Structures are given as C-alpha cells and as structure tokens.
C-alpha cells in the first residue's frame, strides 16, 4: 500500500502564502507572521517568525510542515511582538486548536490574521522529511482528517484540493482493537505504554492547550503527581493529561509526534474525544464555544454513571 498522495498544490500554496505575507506585513496589517521555513536538514521545515516584509519569501509549506504553530500564540509567545495583530499559517487541524484557545479566553480573533492552508496531509514523524507523501508515510492524524480546507480564515490560497485516496483511519482501527480487549488486558497495555515514560514533559511543552503558567504537576504543596519517572507517577500524569484535554483536544497529535518514547498519546486523546462525541454529541475545534460539555450541565446529560 504505497499509494502516492498528490501534494502538487503545495508549491502554489507556498507562493500564495509568500505574496499574502508580504502584502500584510508591508501594509502594516500585522506585526509578525508565524509560519514554516526550510530547515537545515534536507526537506525539513521549522517554525519561523517573520516581522519584515522582505523576509516573507522564507515562508514555505511542504509535507514536512508538521508543527502546530498555535503554540506560538500562547506559551511560546514571548518570541513574538506584543503589539498589533499576529499573522499565522494554519492547517485545518491547527485551526481547531486556535478555535479552542479562543473559547478559553487565551486568544482573541481580532488579534489574529489567519492564513489558512488547504492541506493534503503531512508526513509521519517516523519518516525522513524528504520522503514523498504516500498512504504509508502520511501522519496518522491525516488519515482521519475532517478539516483539509480551513474555514473562517482571513485568507486561504485559491487552489483546488486534489482528490484523495481513501485512507483507513489509523486511530479508529486502534481504538476498536483496544475496546475489544478485556479491562485487564487494556490496563496491561497502557501500563506497558506508561512504563516507557521518562517524564520529559515534551508532550506538555508542545501541547497548545497546556498553557498553564504553573502546571499542577510542578506544584509541590501538596505534591499532586509524583515527579520521578516511576509507574504510579507516570500513570497519574498521563491520566491527568488525558482528562484535562477531554473536550478540548482536537487532535493535532503533536504530543505523539514529539514523544521520544513513542507512547501513543493521541490515541488516548482520540478515545476521550470519541466518548465526548457519544455522550454529548460534542466535537472540539469547530466553533468558539464559551462553555464546553464538561463545564456545562443540562438535564439531557448522561446520568447512567449514577448507580
């Protein structure tokens, strides 16, 4: 199954991003643009903050543009100017994070200039950045993408998305497999996964929703979560993370991408999202909601847990 995926539009997208970036920077509509630029390694990209119209030509979009740049609007925002509107290059999946952050009073729509990217998919973290995008090399999250064309952006390059081959949803398959296990088997699976954790907190640092200035896991009065990478503390950390992201995470899968121990973190998030969909018919990231399903009570809420 090495079916190729057509990414020919990306060069047109790159050109359009550059033109638009140049225009809005020159016109003073924004003070900075967060986007992707070529990196040193062959084919790889890295986030870049452009503040000068002349530097807009550095902006690109390729199958290696994997990062969720929404991160640079919250905790990593120290690097970008404090005043004025900020432009940002967003894929559909990244936009969901921005939408969520707006609902949580972390971002204001008026402070942003959204450059939406029609996206055919990006590469999995396990392959070299110069690899061609195929059904095998595509990131797992892209197999289940429902937001190839971002909506409600200030600018979206006018290109036609090519038709995509039908891809099997990798998370859906894995969730179905785990759901079929007995609770004991499932617990064994996750215990094994969490045992790998080295508590580097890369998943926390890369998550756009982990915007707390003081993570509760770093608090020591009282110590909520054991800080050393031992089974109990690891499990506590991953459960806290999954619970805190329930109803908020829209699946950019950055946690999973950066995990040095290859713990399937997004799998846990997708399972939580599935529960939320089934219980409250709620999907994160599509509209700015003042109140998510877990901070609201309605008498239609599922009560079956009360026994």
């Amino acid at each position, binding site marked *: 199954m090495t079916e190729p995926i057509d990414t020919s539009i990306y060069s047109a997208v790159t050109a359009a991003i550059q033109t638009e970036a140049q225009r809005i920077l020159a016109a003073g509509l924004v003070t900075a643009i967060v986007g992707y630029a070529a990196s040193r390694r062959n084919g790889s990209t890295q986030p870049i903050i452009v503040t000068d119209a002349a530097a807009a030509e550095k902006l690109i979009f390729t199958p290696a543009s994997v990062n969720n740049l929404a991160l640079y609007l919250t905790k990593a925002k120290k690097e970008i100017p404090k005043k004025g509107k900020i432009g940002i290059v967003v894929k559909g999946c990244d936009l969901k994070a921005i939408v969520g952050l707006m609902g*949580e*009073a*972390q971002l204001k729509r008026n402070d942003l200039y959204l450059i939406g990217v029609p996206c055919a998919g990006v590469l999995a973290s396990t392959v070299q950045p110069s690899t061609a995008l195929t059904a095998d090399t595509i990131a797992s999250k892209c197999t289940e993408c429902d937001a190839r064309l971002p909506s409600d952006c200030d600018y979206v390059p006018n290109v036609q998305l090519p038709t995509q081959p039908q891809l099997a949803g990798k998370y859906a398959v894995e969730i179905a497999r785990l759901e079929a296990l007995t609770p004991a088997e499932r617990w064994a699976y996750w215990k094994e996964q969490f045992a790998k954790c080295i508590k580097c907190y890369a998943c926390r640092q890369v998550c756009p929703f982990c*915007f*707390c*200035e*003081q*993570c*509760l896991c770093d*608090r020591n*009065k*009282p*110590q*909520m979560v054991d800080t050393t990478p031992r089974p109990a503390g690891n499990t506590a950390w991953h459960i806290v993370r999954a619970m*805190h992201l329930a109803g908020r995470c829209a699946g950019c899968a950055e946690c999973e991408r950066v995990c040095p121990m290859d713990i399937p973190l997004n799998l846990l998030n997708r399972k939580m999202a599935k529960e939320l969909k089934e219980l409250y018919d709620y999907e994160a990231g599509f509209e700015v909601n*003042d*109140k998510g399903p877990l*901070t*609201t009570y309605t*008498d239609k809420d599922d009560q079956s847990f009360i026994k």
Partner: protein
Amino acid sequence: MSRIGVFICHCGENISRTVDVERVAQQVGKMPGVAFSTDYKYMCSDPGQNLLKKAIQEQNLTHVVVAACSPRMHEKTFRKAVEAAGLNPFLCEMANIREHCSWVHENREEATVKATEIVGMMVERVKKNRVLPTITVPVTKRSLVIGGGIAGIQAALDIADCGHEVILVEREPSIGGHMAQLSETFPTLDCSQCIMTPKMVDVANHPNIKLYTYSEIELVEGYIGNFQVTIKKRARSVDEDKCTGCGVCMTKCPQKKIPNKFDQNIGMRTAIYIPFPQAVPNTPVIDRENCTMFKTGKCGVCQKVCGPGAVDFEQQDQLIIEAVGAIVVATGFDLYTIDEKPKGSLIKGYGEFGHGKIPDVIDGMTFERLASASGPTGGKILRPSDGKEPKQIVFIQCIGSRAREKGISYCSKVCCMYTAKHTMLYHHKVHDGQAYVFFMDARTPGKSYDEFWRRSIEEEEAVYIRGMVSRLYQKGDKIIVRGSDIAVGVQVEIEADMVVLATAIQPQKGADTLAQKLGISYDKYNFYSEAHAKLRPVECATAGIYLAGACQGPKDIPETVSQASAAAAKVMTLFSKDLLEREPIVARVKESGCVGCFACKKVCAYGAVEEKEIRDRQGNLIKTVAFVNPGVCAGCGTCQATCPSKSVELDGYTDEQIVAMIESL
C-alpha cells in the same frame, strides 16, 4: 507547634453505644500536635461547652476538633463556643462520628477504629486551618419586587411600611394580577376587587414605592446587597405625568372591538385603554398593534381630544437602571392552555374537551369574569355563544393537573375550592339552575375550607360526581357531557348548557428566561425552586433573592399573602444591618498561577467569579485573571475542582488540607 484540643462526644448513647469513645480520645491524644483530648456525654450541652472553653484557656489550645454529630447540626454551636473562649471560630472543625460512623455500623471494634481515623483526619486538617476574618458586604437598602399581583403588592407594602424604598415592576399596564380578575374569593365569598383595590391604591400612594408598570426586567447584575437591575419601561404612548385619567380618549377611540385580555377575551376594549376601571395607575396605554394611528399613520383622535395633551405617539421604550440590595420574585401563574400543546412545552393539550371549538366550554377564569360585577356581562352568568342563561352547568376538575400522561403530575391546589365557589356563585345568580361537578378527589385542607366545600353540596345543591369525563360534544345548542360516576359505578350523561374546565396552574410565561437573568433555579415546569423545601421556603439558593406566591408553586391567596410577608421579613432581616456578614468559607484565586482560562467562571453557579486585570505601574495589562467576589461566593468548591492549574483554593478545604487528611489514613 499547634496545640490541638480534641473533644469526643458520646451523644448520650448515640455514639458511645457503638464507638469506644474513651479509646478514641486516648488514641488521638497520642497524635503529634494534639495537646489535649477528652470525652464527654453531651458536648453540645452547657457543661459540655464550658468544658471546651475551659480547656482552651487552661491548656492554651490553638485549634479544636469536636468529634460528634454532623457539622450541619452543631458546627455553629461549637464555633461560637470557641469564639467565646478567644479563638478564631474557623480554627474549630467537627469530625462526624455519628452519621458517618456510629449510626451506620454495628461492629464496635471496627467502628472504633473508623472513628479514630475520622478524628485523625480532622486533626490533620485543622492543623492547616487559617484564621479567617468574617466577610462584610455593604447593603443597599432598597428592594426590587418583580410582579404586581397580590404577592408583589403585599411584599412591596410590607417592605415600604418598614421605611425602605421599593421598586415594583409589573409587565401589564396595571398592577393587580390575577386576583383583580376574580369575582369573589373563597372561603368567605368576599368580593375580590373590594379587598384588592385598596391595596393597589396604597401602592400607588405610598411614598416609598416606585412603581413601573408596562415594564420588564432586562438585566440583573451584582449580588446580595448590591444588585444592579436594568428595567425596560415600554412606551405607553401616554405621558403619565400629564394624564389625568379622565378617560375621554377611550370613549372616542374608533377601535372598539379588541378582545380584552383582562376579561379573558370575552369583553372588548379600545386601542387606547386601561385594562379595567380600577386600574393602577389609571393611565391608559396605547396598544400599538391595534391602533389605527400606528397601523396607518392616520387617526390621532385620542391626541386631539386629550385636554392635557398627554398622548405621545413618539414615546420610546426606556431603559432604567436601579440599584437594589434584595429582590423579591412574585411573577405568579398563568393558566394551562387547554386546547393545544403550547410550543416547546412538555405538556399535552386537551383537544378532546373542545375548548376553543365549542364556544360554551370555558375555563375557570372566564367564569370569574362572567360572575364579576365589573365583568363583560355585568355579573350575569350568560353563555358566550348566544347570551342565554345556562340552566345546566358542568364543572370538570383536574384539567391538566394530576395527569402525568399529559405532562403535569402536580395538584394545582386551588381548583377544588374555586369550583366549589363557582357552584355557589352560579346558584346565587341562577336560582333554577343546576350545577354538576366531575371530580377525582376533593382537596380541601385549610381553615374553613372543607366546611366551604360541604356547603356547596349541602346548602347550594351542587351535584358532585366522582369520576372523569370521557367525552364531550356539541349537540344542537347543548353540550353533551358523558362520564362515569365511579362511586355508583354507572355511566352518566348530562345535557349541559355550559361547561367550565378547572385548568391547571402553570408558571407565568417566560418564567425560565427571567430565572436565567436572575441566576435562580427552577424545576421542570419552570416553577422557581426554594433553597430548602421545609426550612428555607421563601429564599432562593441565590443569596438576596426571595420568592413570593404562585411563581414557586400553586398557591391560594392566603398562602400567597403569608409568603409575601415572609419574603418581606427576609428582606427586612437583610436590611437590618448596614454591613452583611458572611461566612468566610470562600474561594480565593492564586493570581500567580491563574492563566485566565475562566473555566471557574463557566462553572460557577453563583456568578461569583469575575475577570480582573493585572497591570504594571505604567498601566500596561500584564494578564487577566479570575477573581472570586467573596460577597457572592457560596463556598461550594466547584471552581477549585475545575481549575486545571489548581490556582483556586477554598478556605478550609485547600488541596493541602485534603491531601493531609488522605495521608493521615
């Protein structure tokens, strides 16, 4: 180092029967930080409390744990005692070893171990208690009363008579509510208008009452003692200051055939109107939907004939902001719509009774208007269809009420009594007529109520048939009513001239919207919920808001008046002090950790969380954080549980304390 005193109560034998209290005292006495521990038969008694006070002074105690019953029972008692001995009352905690232990266990050994652990947990918790100063909040000594029926009028008069200003807001053009519509009232048959209108006039003339009629509540902000209320005063099109109430405009208005809602739409009114002759204020209002001037731009007769020039077609709706300290909600009831299912309602209609289709099938309130001397028929009982006097009349009870399958399971409480009254009024006015009543049960608790009902049967010749009506249809000019008499076990069929349906009481339309503006809770029928069904029946769970009358549930007039006076007394209690004291068990935000996601604000049921801007010395915004208003916070702890970064702490229940309790086990 803390010097904690632990006092174990026997509660007579309630605790000591199952728990070895001496052993608990002994064990806990060994815990680090515990300086004194003892047991006593009744800690809450006078000698018990003295023992506690003496120990605090003699042993130089810094914290106190009383192991006894539920804190709901005696926390206040012991905190007071601790305060009397010179300690901050919030350095005293209770360990519940009665409800949580002795009452629910049988094995003495195990119960003793559990009691020791419960007390041990509280010892760990109290070590970390802080001295909490009582919170004081200033009180604006003005109150808002929403609804100008008998409930609102009574509450407003009581508060105003105590010397405090009242803002009375009524949606309709006149105050009076449903009681003004009634002909006579049970169980004494005195004329409703005769007892109601003097009170209405009192309201109009009272120097402490500011009356806004034809007005609605737009927005409620603030908290107990400090509410800001925005009132929308709808355009009357008549200047209240200029109008003398002469009524010439109404006699000259060419639009004369508009159904009058006050007369249940059987009487007619003009487009510029007062709903009824005794209306307060006696200032007409122009019904813009039906006024020729507003529809076509031509007419203006009322303006021409008005001597003082009070008619003002240009008048606009006004928004008025009033500051009040307390709110009494008295929005009353509405009658069940019989013929159709109201949109969005959980209640099904009663199409089978032909209301709306058969003109002589009317509801109870319409009968009141027919029987009223000021009603459309001048007090004669006449059929709406042909104006003839009905000689056979059938009353059907429990229409809508007590019918779970139709959506209402509650009893409307007043229908049994008012139907008995209707049979009497009918008998007094139509001497040769016969009244029949189909009923399920007669519910007549209340002073002189059952006697009244008996009188309708024994003296006023009403025939009561126990059973429900199965079918009702028009035949010629008669209405055939078919039903069963379950007492005898036969089918009955009555050829009636008129049928009166005793329809259920429902909350006023829009009751839910108003509740959302006020931040008070309501049940599935939209009746407002009281804070405690038995012990706090006139207060809402939201501090500073009180309930009066049928907005809380079906009520008759005496009950409504009592509740209105009770609500007024609650308002007066609040106004009796310049500063309101509140228990300081409230949440605090640790601003250093708060990232302003406002999850706490979203979950706060009391609207206590506000947004606070933190600025540097130059005035630049550093960040926006949550702020818990201690005047509003009820100390429920939901914000603490929700905060993802653990930046909210509830005093007395901090994470540190809870973890210390768990770790003591």
